[in-house]
């Protein structure tokens, strides 16, 4: 079900013939697809198919052995992860990668780091510009906190939060960078239905309100089918299908490789 009120545009990111191997393990072989502006793309596939590796290639943590990534029209073989992030790509992680010693608020503020510029002498003195900058960004961070409804845990160290809330904070941190492309690795793992509903709502809102392009990996087919505009299916490092949720659902090789006996 493609919504009509948003404009899916040109390709924001193109993955061209990317291959990646670790010794004997071929994590990705010759994968190509594109992520279009403003869309929600789901990447699915069985365990070990190479989904997370794909995201890692996109944001520069892994370097593809072959192939290239074209982002906003610029092709690259290798780029520092920090630079990718500064170019408007942010992400969440499959194994939660929050800064455990910091509070929720600080974690989200860290997401805004790339947007802050005062040098450390100003920061040390803290009066004037640095303080204003800090407050301005604090306001933005609070907006995100409100949006994700995590006001109550603003000052809690994230290490103490239950799994589901940590996921939410992680999303907050990624959103704080005001990304153009948001990569989500299993954002709904470990959540119950109610929480998944919340999470879906956040994702959809981000997509609709800020027009953020989203690529997400998810194993819950219900979620994938409901919220994504397009689905890419990986299996053993290969792309085996690419299309609208309904097309993919009907695809026999996808059923064989991944869905198994459909539960729906």
């Amino acid at each position, binding site marked *: 079900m493609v919504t009509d009120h948003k404009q899916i545009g040109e390709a924001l990111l193109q993955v061209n013939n990317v291959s990646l191997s670790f010794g004997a393990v071929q994590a990705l072989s010759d994968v190509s697809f594109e992520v279009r502006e403003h869309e929600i793309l789901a990447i699915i596939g069985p365990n070990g198919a190479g989904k997370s590796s794909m995201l*890692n290639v996109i944001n520069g*943590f892994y370097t593809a052995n072959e192939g290239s990534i074209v982002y906003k029209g610029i092709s690259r073989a290798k780029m520092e992860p920090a630079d990718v992030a500064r170019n408007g790509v942010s992400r969440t*992680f*499959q*194994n939660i*990668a929050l800064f455990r010693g910091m509070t929720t608020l600080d974690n989200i503020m860290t997401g805004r780091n790339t947007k802050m510029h005062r040098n450390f002498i100003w920061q040390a003195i803290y009066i004037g510009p640095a303080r204003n900058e800090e407050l301005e960004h604090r306001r933005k961070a609070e907006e995100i906190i409100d949006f994700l409804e995590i006001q109550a845990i603003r000052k809690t160290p994230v290490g103490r939060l239950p799994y589901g809330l940590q996921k939410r904070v992680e999303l907050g941190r990624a959103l704080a960078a005001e990304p153009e492309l948001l990569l989500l690795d299993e954002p709904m793992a470990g959540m119950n239905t109610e929480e998944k509903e919340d999470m879906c709502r956040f994702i959809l809102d981000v997509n609709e309100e800020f027009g953020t392009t989203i690529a997400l990996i998810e194993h819950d087919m219900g979620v994938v089918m409901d919220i994504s505009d397009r689905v890419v299916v990986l299996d053993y490092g290969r792309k085996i299908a690419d299309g609208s949720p309904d097309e993919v659902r009907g695809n026999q090789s996808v059923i064989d490789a991944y869905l198994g006996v459909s539960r729906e």
Partner: protein
Amino acid sequence: MDFLYSVTADPVLQIVEDPVFFLQIILEGLMAGVMYSLVALGFCLIYKASGVFNFAQGVMMVLAVMCMVTVYDAGFGILLALLVAMVFMVGLSFAIERVVLRPMVNQPQIILFMATIGLAFFLEGFGEFIFGGSSQKIVPTEALHIGRDALLIPMFGSEIRLQQLDLTAGVCAALLVATLALFFQKTTVGRALRAVADDHQAALSVGIPLRSMWVIVWSVAGLVALVTGIMWGASSSVDFSLVLIAMKAFPVLILGGFTSVPGVIVGGLIIGVGEKVAELYWGDALGGSIEEWFAYVLALVFLMFRPQGLFGEKIIERV
């Protein structure tokens, strides 16, 4: 210009002129390296098996040999002395497990490291209290059948000098390392120990008895400490300043890799030879005693290429 000459051409000339001396230096470096490896081995064991960087290893070494020598000096036989020292070290491991380690399961490495710092203080005070920090003790080398003579090997008209003590240390180190390496790679307990080092909680959850594991490892490390202490003690005298020797182990450890028993030997040999060659051929040109930092710089250079040390387990970086 003079300086350039003395650090570039001169060492080469010296080596060519007097190759036997060079050989001597290499051999001496190897011997020294073995002595360092022995110290490093204790650290490596405990780290590998529990993820604890044991700052107290140096003190344990002194305690072990102090205990041995004290018993011997009191007129008991050497065998009894060795036995008592071993029992003492095993008892110590039980105590350490109960008091220090058990309440600290699942704490981050740095916290455990700190705990061993506290332990080091305690043991030093305790050791001085029991054995008397102020009396000087001498390792009974004859009773232990450790030769103290130099072996002279004639070669190309000049001669090479080897110390029996160093050779003995070499043999001990080789035996220890071979046994321990096998133990870790091939046995169930070895595997369990590596598991403990990775994740205390998960190890608990699969039923690995953390407590006995720790006692085993610390006891073994205690025995290694005893051997090390005897070797180092024999080459000078036994008192608490021997604790400083621990500093020699650090570069060896990182060069070989914290987690590798064979790495300790290789690291020791590289550091030993590198240090001696550098000191003998470059030391004076640079100002002398460059050994002080050279070992660390050498290790640093190696680490730039292999951040986990030569044989260390690869540091897993994933998201």
